[in-house]
Every structure is written in structure tokens, then in C-alpha cells.
């Protein structure tokens, strides 16, 4: 075992996005000493990418009749369950819809500066799947506002920050998580942490796909660490494809075009000029009658939300993604293989005020002026609904001492997440994870770390270093992306998924022989070997679950099982855990929803 730096904390928070930092604030308020590990610099997490807003049913907006929109947690609950195709954990959704409201007010108390209504309240915008205007926002940079707010608050509350540290494994004692081993990217040297509880807030994973809005960090380290420590994972087949990623130019492929564009009146058209979202075949039964049925009605909704129904572009993300996929498949795509998204009818002044960073992004990077021309878009891998299975009350994972919040945790969003719900998720469950971890840590003492586990983690990490002649992690990564993109993305079927499974397993074997030339100091090729291990682990699990769920629900679209099977698959989640070193997929019945919550679906 190589000697290394060592730190002791009450609570170790892994990941410094919104969920991790909100957990820090909660743990500090509970009096804990908190260490924070982040893979990048502080404040660079994926939270900054969120554009549209943070969903919470404040009910601030006034309708055309002068009345406030009758929004409330009950409607947010109903919308979130419907959007998730009822695979969500109802208790998580109930907690979420309730507490999101206070978490948003609290952000304002911490210093967040939201856009305002004429009456001086926080302004809310409409978004796909939300019945009322519910996304509290700051232009199209709400995520930046949110992370900077909780970052400043956490810095003020006091924490020990370890930037650019990647964790290699969680350390356990008698089946309880008691610490972690990581390495400094800057020096390549190892570091260990002892803690009474560990909160994973490491975000999602999308880098195993070629079209993704995820940064290099989205490799699934957190979910892999938890899985390897024995935690159960849930709904791992549910990967969200955001309907509107940039498709052109090639360097920008996958980069997000906020749903706010459609919320502000953006129109989707195919290469024939058809506004294809009006085609009846794209309207799911669940939503029939709730959306505008003509272009005039959709246009009227922009100024009068009460009298007119919303445009079908604002259907949930899974629905819009599939429609775009089918249009392109049917030969109605644009030259670069996407469809057109046009918001130019709103006028230059409005667009620059409401969507400033979208205007900038297309202007600077795509040579497109969105105030006069349409954007070209195609679905991009965006978000992971599935993740570590947690207790709704405490965010505890199924391994003692381990907690998880935010995108790395599963259960809240079911088969599909509504836009804006991720930012309220990280606030609600980030806080609960911090509280849960603090409660678990109370009265406990730090455990001794097992030198054998540390030595093993170090050995695994160092294996490819300095080797020449082996395979390059970059080349293997490209092969993985190609396989997952072709076979496990938006449209799935058994034959393709089996090809993907074989390929992923082949790549896992080949990854044993990876080589990373160079030294230990800030060596991205070496870091990539570790990221690839996480991606391969997660990819196998995604494909296994996608194969198992023989129905189409939410983000899981099986073209060989196109129907939604409410009586069968609709009654159960898929849960994965590690058995004899291999992922085992088991069915787990959905918890029964109490009658008083079922009744909400009649009323809201």
C-alpha cells in the first residue's frame, strides 16, 4: 500500500453540484464537520447547465381573468407521476412536491435573484408536462444561479473542499461505508477519507453515448462506487433523451437547447415545413384533449394561458424525442439529420431578453441567428432517471452509512423526468441526504480503514499507468459510444440490445489491457482509464435492464414491444445489485399509493 494523505470528517460529500452543496448546508446546520470532494473545480458541476428553471408550485402567475393560477403541490405531484409514467416512488414525489416550494424560498433567502412578475413575485414559466406555469427562473441560466447560491451559502457555512479529486472506491468495514479512496488529478497521488457517513451526489452518466449533453464528468463514477459497495440500483434502463440537442455544427453535437425555447413559443417543423407535433399519432392517450389542436390555438396560448391550451411542443420529453426520431427516420429530417426548431416569430428583442444564452450559443458557435432563422435539433442523451435506490425520508442507500441525492439517486422521476424537476430534486433531496447523514453520524465514531481495500484500489488504478502497447482508453471509449448510440439509445429492440451487451462485455475484457503512457501528474489519458471502467460497468447494467423491461414506458421505447403494459411491467421496478461480481437484475413491486393520493388524479 502506498502511503497517502488522510482526512477525517463526520460526513464526506462526494460531488459539489446543487445536491452535494445543499447536503453540505444541511449537515453543517446539524453541526457536522464536512469534507467535500469534487471531480472538477468547485462550482463547475452539471447544475450550471440547467437553463429553464426550478419547478415548484408557488402559484405566482396571474391568468388572463386576473386570478392567480390555482397551482399547488397536489398538481405538481400529479404532473410528476404522470410524466414519470407512474414508475416513480410515490412517497418521494409527495415529499418532493411539498418541499420544493420551501426550498425555492430558501434559495431566495440565501441570495438567489429570480426574475420577477409585475406584482414583485418570483416569475414562473411554462414547461413540458407541467399543467401550470411552474418554473422559477433567471433568464435561461437558472442552474448557474442555483449552484452559485448554494456554493456561496456552503462556503459561508464552512466546509473542507478537495477539488479535482476522483474517487476510486468506497471503503467499508463490516458492510458499512466508512470512507473512500481517491486520487488527486493534479499530482496523481492517493488520498483517503474517513467519515461516519458518505453522501454521493455525483450526478448522472451520459458519456457512454455519442450524442450527449453531458460533460466529461458524466461517466457514472458515483453509481459505480455505490454498486461496487453493494448498494441496489433502480430503474437503470431509464435514460432521458432531451428532444432538442444541437445537431450542427459537428463540434456542438449534443449540446443542449433549453426546453425554455419551446416554453417561450418555439415551434418544431420537419423539412417539409410541417408542424409535426400536431400529428395525432404523436399524442399519447394520457394527454389527449389537454393540448392545442391548431396553430391558431397554440399561438393564442402565448398571450392567454387561461383561454387556450398549450402547444404540443410542450408534451413531456420522451414524447417529443420519439416524434423527432420518427420524423427523421421517415425521411423528413433536415440536411444534418435533425428537425427545425424556430422561435424567430417572437422577435429579436423578446428572444434576447428571455433566451440570452441560447442566442449567444447559436450566434457564436453555430453561425445561426435564432431571432431570424430556425435551429437544427435532434435528441441528445441528457439525464438519468435511474440510480441508487434510496429511502425517501432519509436518502439512505441500501448499504449502511451511504446516502445519495440528486441525479445519482433513482426513484423520484420514474420513467421520465419533467423539465425543471431536476433542480428542485437536488434541493429537496440534497437537504434530506445531509439531514439523513447527520442523523446517522450522530453518536458514531470513525472506523479504522482496511489497508487491503486501499491497496487493492491503488493497484487497480495504477495498473494501466506508464504502460505502452496496450489499448488506448480514447479508442475504446469511441467504440463504446458507437455501440450504445446504435443499439441502446432512443429506439431499442432485443437484437440490438444483445449486440450492445456482447460488445460491452468484450470491451470490459479489453479494458483489462488498457495502457496510459506518461506520468502521474495531471494525465488525462490515465484518468480516462478509470472513467472507462465506470462507463463500462454502467453500460452493461443499462443494457441488461433495457432488455428485461419488455414494454414501452417513458424513456424506454422498445420497438419490439411498443405497448405500455400497465397490468404487468407497470407494476414493478427493475432493481440491480451485485451478485458474485456480476449485475443481477430483479423485479421489485411498486409500493402501493395511498387512497388520498390516488384521489388527487381525479381532482387535478
Amino acid at each position, binding site marked *: 500500500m502506498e502511503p497517502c*494523505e488522510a482526512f477525517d470528517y463526520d460526513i464526506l460529500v462526494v460531488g459539489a453540484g446543487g445536491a452535494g452543496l445543499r447536503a453540505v448546508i444541511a449537515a453543517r446546520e446539524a453541526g457536522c464537520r464536512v469534507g467535500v470532494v469534487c471531480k*472538477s*473545480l*468547485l*462550482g*463547475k458541476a*452539471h447544475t*450550471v*447547465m440547467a437553463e429553464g428553471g426550478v419547478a415548484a408550485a408557488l402559484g405566482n402567475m396571474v391568468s388572463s381573468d386576473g386570478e392567480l393560477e390555482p397551482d399547488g403541490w397536489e398538481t405538481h405531484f400529479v404532473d410528476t407521476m404522470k410524466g414519470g409514467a407512474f414508475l416513480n416512488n410515490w412517497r418521494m414525489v409527495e415529499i418532493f412536491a411539498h418541499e420544493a416550494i420551501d426550498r425555492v424560498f*430558501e*434559495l*431566495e*433567502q*440565501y*441570495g438567489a*435573484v*429570480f*426574475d*420577477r412578475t409585475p406584482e*414583485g*413575485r418570483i416569475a414562473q414559466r411554462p414547461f413540458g408536462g407541467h399543467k401550470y406555469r411552474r418554473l422559477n427562473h*433567471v*433568464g435561461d441560466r437558472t442552474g*448557474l*444561479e442555483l449552484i*452559485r447560491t448554494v456554493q*456561496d451559502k456552503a*462556503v*459561508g457555512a464552512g*466546509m*473542507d*473542499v478537495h*477539488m479535482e479529486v476522483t474517487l476510486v472506491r468506497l471503503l467499508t468495514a463490516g458492510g458499512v461505508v466508512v470512507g473512500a479512496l481517491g486520487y488527486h488529478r493534479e*499530482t496523481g*497521488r492517493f488520498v483517503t477519507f474517513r467519515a461516519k457517513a458518505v453522501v454521493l451526489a455525483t450526478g448522472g452518466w451520459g458519456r457512454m453515448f455519442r450524442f450527449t449533453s453531458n*460533460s*466529461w464528468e458524466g461517466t457514472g463514477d458515483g453509481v459505480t462506487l455505490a454498486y461496487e459497495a453493494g448498494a441496489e440500483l433502480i430503474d437503470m434502463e431509464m435514460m432521458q433523451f432531451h428532444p432538442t440537442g444541437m445537431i*450542427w*455544427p*459537428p*463540434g456542438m453535437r449534443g*449540446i*443542449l437547447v433549453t426546453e425554455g425555447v419551446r416554453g417561450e413559443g418555439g415551434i418544431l417543423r420537419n423539412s417539409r415545413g410541417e408542424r409535426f407535433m400536431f400529428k395525432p399519432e404523436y399524442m399519447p392517450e394520457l394527454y389527449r384533449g389537454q393540448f392545442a389542436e391548431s396553430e391558431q390555438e397554440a399561438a393564442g396560448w402565448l398571450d392567454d394561458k387561461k383561454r387556450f391550451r398549450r402547444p404540443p411542443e410542450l408534451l413531456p420529453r420522451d414524447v417529443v424525442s420519439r416524434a423527432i426520431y420518427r420524423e427523421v427516420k421517415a425521411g423528413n429530417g433536415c440536411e444534418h439529420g435533425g428537425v427545425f426548431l424556430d422561435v424567430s416569430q417572437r422577435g429579436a428583442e423578446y428572444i434576447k431578453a428571455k433566451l440570452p444564452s441560447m442566442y449567444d*450559443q447559436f450566434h*457564436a*458557435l453555430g453561425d445561426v441567428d435564432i431571432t431570424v432563422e430556425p435551429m437544427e435539433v435532434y435528441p441528445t442523451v441528457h439525464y438519468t432517471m435511474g440510480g441508487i435506490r434510496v429511502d425517501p425520508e432519509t436518502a439512505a442507500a441500501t448499504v449502511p452509512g451511504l446516502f445519495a441525492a440528486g441525479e445519482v439517486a433513482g426513484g423520484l422521476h420514474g420513467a421520465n423526468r419533467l423539465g425543471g424537476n431536476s433542480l428542485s430534486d437536488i434541493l429537496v433531496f440534497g437537504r434530506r441526504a445531509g439531514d439523513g447523514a447527520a442523523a446517522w453520524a450522530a453518536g458514531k465514531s470513525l472506523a479504522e480503514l482496511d489497508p487491503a481495500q486501499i491497496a487493492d484500489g491503488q493497484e487497480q488504478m495504477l495498473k494501466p499507468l506508464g504502460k505502452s502497447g496496450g489499448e*488506448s*482508453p*480514447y479508442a475504446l471509449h469511441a467504440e463504446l459510444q458507437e455501440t450504445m448510440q446504435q443499439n441502446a439509445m432512443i429506439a431499442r429492440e432485443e437484437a440490438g440490445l444483445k449486440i450492445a451487451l456482447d460488445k460491452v462485455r468484450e470491451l470490459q475484457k479489453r479494458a483489462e489491457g488498457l495502457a*496510459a*503512457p*506518461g506520468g*502521474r*501528474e*495531471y*494525465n*488525462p*489519458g*490515465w484518468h*480516462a482509464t478509470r472513467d472507462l471502467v465506470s462507463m463500462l460497468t454502467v453500460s452493461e447494467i443499462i443494457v441488461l435492464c433495457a432488455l428485461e423491461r419488455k414494454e414501452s414506458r417513458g424513456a424506454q421505447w422498445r420497438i419490439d414491444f411498443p405497448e405500455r403494459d400497465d397490468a404487468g411491467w407497470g407494476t414493478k421496478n427493475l432493481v440491480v445489485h451485485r451478485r458474485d461480481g456480476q449485475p443481477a437484475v430483479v423485479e421489485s413491486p411498486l409500493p402501493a399509493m395511498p387512497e388520498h393520493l390516488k384521489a388527487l388524479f381525479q381532482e387535478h
Partner: protein
Amino acid sequence: MESITLHVFRGAHGVGSLTDYEVPVTPGMVVLDAIHYIQAHTDGTLACRWNCKAAKCGSCSAEINGVPGLLCKTRVDLFPEGDIAVGPMRTFPHVRDLVTDVSWNYRVNARIPPLRPDPARGGAPFDLQQEDVERVQEFRKCIECFLCQDVCHVLREHQRTDAFFGPRQMCRIAGLEMHPMDTLDRRQQLHNEAGVAYCNITKCCTEVCPEHIHITDNAIIPMKERVVDSYFDPVAGILRKIGVLQRQPRQKAAGDAAPATTIHSPPKSAD
């Protein structure tokens, strides 16, 4: 043009030289794409920070032909001759290749007290008009790329990190100082440890800001004026001296307490 030559600074701890790489060009390519191409095809050890690749996170700051900029937002077709030199930010301690140690910025930031809303006005939700918040929203657009810190003469030429917090933190303080609900008096911190007077208004920071924040005009100059009004008004000084004007009892001043947060750096060791 079918390919470009990138001259990339390679080396560690400030010692190194430019190495040439041929990179095929694709439409709309940015410099970060070219760096990624080199990593994947030529040399996987080329060190470079990046995250969002959409100019939203501020990780990939570097100097392109000597000009501080985001690698993800700098198009290669800006340089039709096809020669692009890419180096690390020069103001911060060099780590390796394009990566520098920017942790100082986080340590300074930890010394700025967060918002303290007036409890007498009640807790959130606040009643605020759009006009009240727009001024502050400009400063809160900052993505912490630290390009303004990199280009600031006080920090770059004079290395006065001991005396001046730099434009980024001036933005942070301005966002708090001008927040309609904040009650802390931040003038003393601005005047003393933050060193607002060190800025000599060359506006270099404003020029490089990828978020187009008017750092000098909207953040630094108004705060300089507040500090000057408070510390250097000659008439008020005389009136105070002869006892006509009493020094206003200050609300609790900001910034004297030790920061609660520690930013750790890895122990330095030879590779």
C-alpha cells in the same frame, strides 16, 4: 482549410515549450475540439481542463495567440492563416500543459461574507421588482472562468494577490453590495483587504469577459465611489474633526472573520 497547426504549450511548473500538432478541421470547430482531437489521436497526456463545452462553466480558460479566452467558445476559423498558439493562463501558478492552479480565487472568495438579508423585513419570498434585481443579475452571470483575473494588471504584472481580490471578486461583492435585501456594510472590506483602489480602470477585465459583464463600469467604479465617499471626503473629514459631523455608527462590518471554508491543495511532489 483542411487542417490547422496548433502550437500547444507543453510542460510542467512553468518550464516547457510549444509543440506543434496537425489537426484536421471540421465545420464550426472550436479550439477545445482540436485539443480533444490531439488527446484522442496524438498524445493522451495533454492536460487541459474542461467541462460543459458550452461556455457555461468557465473551466477551459486559456490564452489563445496570447489572448485570454474560453477554448470552447473560440472558433478555429477565427484564424484563417491556420496558426494557433495555445498556452495556459499566465497569472496563476502553472501545473501542467494548459492547466494552472486557480485555487487562490476560491480562497479569496471564501473571505467574502454571504448575503445577510434584514430579518426585520421578514424572510423570503421577497417582494422585489424586476428593475430592483436586474442590476444584480448582471454580476451573477459570472461563470468564474477567471479570465478577468488573468488579464488584470494588478494580478498579472504586479502579482499583488496579497492586496487585491481581482475583478471576479469585485463582481461577487457588487452582487451582494447592490442586492436590495443585503444589510452588511461591505465598504471596509472593499477598502482594506479587497483593495478596490488598486484597480486603475483599464477595463481589460471587461474586454475578456465571456458573459459581457461590464465589470469596470458597473461593479468596480460604483464601489470605488462608495469607498471614496466614505473614506476620502475632505469636507466630511473636516466636519468630523471639529465635531460637527459624527462618524456614522457602522453596521457590522464585513470580512474580518477568518473564512469558515478551507480549500485544500494536494501536497506537491515530484513526479
